[in-house]
């Protein structure tokens, strides 16, 4: 959102349309996610199905344990790069920034991941072994992560506040962690039931 509403001439953002940036950003995020999912799906299709099923069943149990652990005993830090997208990218120009930033967040691996649930997305795309399904799962993630900017901008317009948006979002991080942990536990259970162990 900071980059989209930014109109700093020093960052080559003066006169840029926020609507154009938001469209490019959210589309880039979705497309990058879908492309990564398709790539992982293709890689997965080269692996033997029995091996993918065995790995998926083990990961299902692991997901249920991690999700349950986070839900009942508190946060376990996920393995991640833990960094934001570089702000110097803003200097590349409005639409280039939007495309690059959207793609980085839509793929997610090189940015702050924050939740163990994220790992379900690339692993599912890989282990399904079907490029189309990989593209749908990963693409949906990218589209939601990038497309959320529209909901945030709408929220800012409808409910103006003196508190910065970043602080307002940070206040919901505990609820987001609980919901993500619950979703991970539920996903682990579904994998366990569907794939078996």
């Amino acid at each position, binding site marked *: 959102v900071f980059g989209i509403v930014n109109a700093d001439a020093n960052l080559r953002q003066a006169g840029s349309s926020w609507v154009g940036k938001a469209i490019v950003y959210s589309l880039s995020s979705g497309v990058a996610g879908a492309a990564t999912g398709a790539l992982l799906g293709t890689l997965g299709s080269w692996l033997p199905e029995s091996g993918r*099923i065995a790995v998926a069943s083990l990961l299902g149990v692991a997901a249920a344990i991690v999700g349950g652990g986070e839900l009942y005993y508190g946060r376990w830090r996920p393995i991640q790069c833990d960094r934001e997208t570089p702000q110097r990218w803003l200097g590349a120009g409005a639409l280039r920034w939007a495309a690059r930033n959207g793609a980085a967040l839509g793929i997610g691996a090189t940015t702050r991941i924050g939740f163990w649930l994220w790992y379900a*997305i690339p692993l599912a795309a890989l282990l399904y072994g079907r490029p189309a399904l990989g593209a749908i799962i990963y693409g*949906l993630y990218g589209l939601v992560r990038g497309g959320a900017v529209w909901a945030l901008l709408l929220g800012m317009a409808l409910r103006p506040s003196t508190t910065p948006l970043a602080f307002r979002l940070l206040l919901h991080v505990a609820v*987001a962690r609980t919901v993500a942990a619950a979703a991970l536990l539920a996903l682990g259970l579904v994998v366990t039931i*569907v794939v*078996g162990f």
Partner: protein
Amino acid sequence: MARLRERRAVLGQRRRRLVSHDLVLRLHESGWELHLRLDKPKLLTGTATLRRALTLAAAVGVVAGGLGHGTADRGWLLVALLLAAIVVGIAQQTLP
């Protein structure tokens, strides 16, 4: 002795009721303040219910996973994965 135990139990129940009432009042007065003060979201009734439901689901899931061994419809797996993609995409908006 029995009466004393009974009185203690009644007092304990009242105290629990007061605590939950206090939380509800705070929620009505200021939603933000509730979030800031309650750094342990497990105190929220909705979360506690969710935990209970998931504990039950976990038990059912482990038994069903062991007995069923891959007999369930794979469509459910895709639904769960798509939901996970949506949840994590939204949850990540709260990251700094």
